[in-house]
């Protein structure tokens, strides 16, 4: 078995796939091409940054849309979390983030802000149909990358790859047949050369959410749809779950609701770094915390 890696840019971030394989050079290249094609297909459907995407069309034209066949897991999780968080986690956040300045042109200049519509006012979802009642800019950024990582993981598995890690902008999916320990450092949002702890896993996904990079004009890319500001009381969250879709979504949700609300419905571990620099971890957290006196 050989250790190989794919590295490339896609969906606005850097990807790195490390994997063990016995493939020929040609077969590896074919696998990489397949993966990048699939990512582009996903981007063409769900990106609000592309003029040619389904999302952009939905932001311009009301109507009944037939969703792509891969939409179901993502849409149904969004719907479930929308209700669980009383609308704080919503795909309708797109217009708010865009108006705050994080728009398709990266103008980074805030315009007038208004709260997004309620789900039932703007949408009606019964897979495969999504009714756009009035044009709305949807944004699946909170969990879309995670879902795409899962999809890429399936491509690897179908290609006979049994041991791999996918790192897309530091959202991570890991699998190893011997369940070897995998140590994920929790990057300090205040100092990228440091980690505040380590999550030690044997499989599954670790996703982080923090306002430490995409910041502008008093906002970062996570926004509260009711008070129209970015949360300041939490510096960063990390979630470990079976799928990257779930870990990605839950890491965002932890900014908005108490962990126990999410723990009632989902199986996951987490760490939350609050602005006062204390790190709260779940009872099932496995790893290390670097705190004073520890």
């Amino acid at each position: 078995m050989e250790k190989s890696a794919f590295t490339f840019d896609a969906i606005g971030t850097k990807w790195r796939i490390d994997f063990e394989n016995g493939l020929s050079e040609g077969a590896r290249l074919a696998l990489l091409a397949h993966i990048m094609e699939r990512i582009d297909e996903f981007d063409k459907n769900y990106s609000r940054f592309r003029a040619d995407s389904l999302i952009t069309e939905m932001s311009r034209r009301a109507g009944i849309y037939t969703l792509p066949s891969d939409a179901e897991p993502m849409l149904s999780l969004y719907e479930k979390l929308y209700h669980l968080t009383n609308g704080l986690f919503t795909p309708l956040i797109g217009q708010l983030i865009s108006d705050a300045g994080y728009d398709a042109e990266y103008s980074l200049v805030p315009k007038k802000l208004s709260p997004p519509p309620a789900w039932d006012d703007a949408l009606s979802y019964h897979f495969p149909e999504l009714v756009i009642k009035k044009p709305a800019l949807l944004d699946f950024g909170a969990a879309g990358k995670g879902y795409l990582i899962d999809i890429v993981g399936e491509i690897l598995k179908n290609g006979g790859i049994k041991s791999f890690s996918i790192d897309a902008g530091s959202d991570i999916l890991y699998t190893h047949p011997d369940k070897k320990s995998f140590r994920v450092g929790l990057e300090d949002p205040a100092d990228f050369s440091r980690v505040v702890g380590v999550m030690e896993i044997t499989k599954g996904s670790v996703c982080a959410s923090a306002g430490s990079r995409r910041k502008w004009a008093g906002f970062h890319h996570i926004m509260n749809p009711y008070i129209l500001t970015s949360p300041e009381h939490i510096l960063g969250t990390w979630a470990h779950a079976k799928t990257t879709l779930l870990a990605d979504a839950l890491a965002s949700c932890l900014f908005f609701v108490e962990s126990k609300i999410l723990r009632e419905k989902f199986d996951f571990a987490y760490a939350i770094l609050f602005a006062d620099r204390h790190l709260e971890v779940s009872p099932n957290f496995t790893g290390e915390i670097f705190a004073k006196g520890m």
Partner: protein
Amino acid sequence: MEEQTKELQKKSWGKIIGIIAIILIPIAGVYAYVNKKIWSKVQEEILEAQFKVQQIGKENKNSETDGKVEEESVPAQKNPVNTNPPVNTTSTGTPATYKDGSYTAVGNYLSPGGAETVGLTLVLKDGVVIDASLEVQATRPISKQMQEIVVANFKPLVIGKKIDEVKLSKVSGSSLTPKGFNDAVVKIKAQAKG
């Protein structure tokens, strides 16, 4: 250089005010427990609280980063496609730059009984908070009780460890920003100076 120092100071203040604001939220939360009706009024007061921040104690110049303004950066990676490099990956970033030392702030807020203050001291080293303490300054008995509850529940603080000191398979943090985003930030900062 002077402008950079001013911006550095503003950022220090901003960070400290942010930390103070969330220290006071538990105080407000305790009030809310006592009387839910006044919760929104107290919250408003705290958000508008005036802070005076002064740096006390020994000031060390951080020689490596002195004068540099905090910049977002995408770590440089040389990444040829489809290669066989080592499995371990680390990420590097630009450390936040605040002068080492003790920072004291006094927060003013309006309790249902009247104006109160609470003191907060933070110690920064290498841009990381390594110590913090709250000082009960309330004068009214109930306010004093509230502040004491917060002080008693002050949680242990994390101190980050340098990445190369820890055995890691990966580092997980917020997604690297797209180049377009970074370019826009640089453009806006340039406009702000001009």
